């Protein structure tokens, strides 16, 4: 039974949810993993974890999501947060300008500590609170384009775009990984004798050079 469980997915992707305190990270997570929203949610202490398994382009993907505390004092455990993370959901609160302004700080943090290939999606949460809106959707879109991120406005309360946000990020990750796998496969087959495929020298130049000099 335990073994079967183990093989019930094709891929395991670690995703981190980051953003200022109180933007709704934990509720986005509970909406995605349990389809729940807790009006009386508490602050996250340190790090919490949850998973959901879903289909991405015909493959079964298990998303292991790390929900982190928003207070920057907790950032000291970043190495553990970001180690092995292939995706990040960066959340701000559309009713609090400050949390949007801090997005750049969170991006810097990701660039400093996370893998350079990490896939990032930005989510402007609490889109149900239209009357309190302090950040326009255009502003969010513009920042996302400038920084090269995917972007969605979400509402964990009304279950709007939460699944879509995760689906987007998981699909992006899957595509990158399958492209890589394909490239690796091609590289592997191209080494077989008699195959006339072009070898991309720039990628492997370091290795080639080494072999060359030592010969």
């Amino acid at each position: 039974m335990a073994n079967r469980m183990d093989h019930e997915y094709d891929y395991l992707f670690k995703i981190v949810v980051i953003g200022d305190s109180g933007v709704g990270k934990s509720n986005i997570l509970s909406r995605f993993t349990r389809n729940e929203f807790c009006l009386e949610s508490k602050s996250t202490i340190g790090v919490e974890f949850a998973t959901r398994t879903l289909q991405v382009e015909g493959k079964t993907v298990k998303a292991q999501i790390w929900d982190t505390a928003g207070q920057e004092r907790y950032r000291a455990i970043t190495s553990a947060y970001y180690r092995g993370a292939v995706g990040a959901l960066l959340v701000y609160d559309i009713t609090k300008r400050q949390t949007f302004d801090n997005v750049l700080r969170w991006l810097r943090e990701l660039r400093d500590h996370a893998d350079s290939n990490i896939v990032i999606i930005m989510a402007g949460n609490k889109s149900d609170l239209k009357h309190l809106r302090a950040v326009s959707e255009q502003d969010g879109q513009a920042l996302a384009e400038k920084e090269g991120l995917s972007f969605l406005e979400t509402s964990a309360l009304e279950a709007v775009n939460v699944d879509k946000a995760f689906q987007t990020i998981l699909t992006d990750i899957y595509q990158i990984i399958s492209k890589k796998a394909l490239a690796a496969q091609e590289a592997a087959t191209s080494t077989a004798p008699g195959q006339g495929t072009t070898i991309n020298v720039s990628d492997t130049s370091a290795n080639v050079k080494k072999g060359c000099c030592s010969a």
Partner: protein
Amino acid sequence: MTYDVYLGLDVVRTDRTLVFYENEANQAKLWDVLAVYAWMDKDIGYVQGMSDICSPMIILLENEADAYWCFERAMRRLRDNFKCSADSVGVQSQLGTLAQIVKTVDPKLHQHLEELDGGEYLFAFRMLMVLFRREFSFVDSLYLWEVMWAMEYNPNIYSSYDDKRQTLLSELLYDDKPGDKHKLKEYGKFERNNLKTGAAEQNSALSVFLVASVLETKHRRLMKEAKGLDDVVQILGEISGNLDARKALDEALKIGVGVESLVGSSIGSQVLDRDQGLELSFEYRVDLESRVKSYVEVTSRVPGAVLNQDKEFGPRFSQYRGLGLGSRLKVRS
């Protein structure tokens, strides 16, 4: 964001299932005490999680100044956990101790956790940070707090507490029975010793042993079913309300003894010392004032608070309503 922003964010979401905090005056008290603390202890300020520690004091003590001093005393024990530097959070030293304890008493489990990328024991971060407040019901966690803190005062107190759980500490302290008087005389011993050895700043290791005992009780499931840290958290999460707090304490003490006999001082002189035995493990800086206060408050309002209850402490607590605490623990409908 400065700390008062977090403070404001957290005050409104601390124990907000309780009717008690529907009253803005009570929220304001929580805010006041935390703000004054942050102002007094500038190295710490406000760190998320502190509101969980403070909230019971606000509920138990009507007087704001009393609540402040109880919280301040509790923070003396816990503040190291909240200390953050550029590359670590204070509680990580306790997590390191936990890792060593588990490695010693249950190497297989430790290895399994390491394989799941859990070697840093971050899944236990919250338990140690807010001293089980999120894992146990309100009353269960208070029970653990009072026993933990009473044992700092006297390591032997747990057995006497266990023997007669209906006995209030006030009775224990002011009883005329010769045995108890003798005990009472001993209570200062540990404090004096700590002053002498300069052990005043150390963290309570009993909480670490408690986490270890919780892990131990879940050994089989963790080994069999945990395929990721999320599973670990889920399995540990199921302890909420299902774990007998007293049993957990017994286990914690057993592990404490076991570790001590196995490795002696190698775990760290702060935690264990072969020469002085287990006793030293639980010799911590004593604080008469807060201990007696919290102890007397809790026990007198909830005599023999029966533990091992479900998470919903509200309905079960109806029986204590006449004693003053019940109404304060009423859950919002």
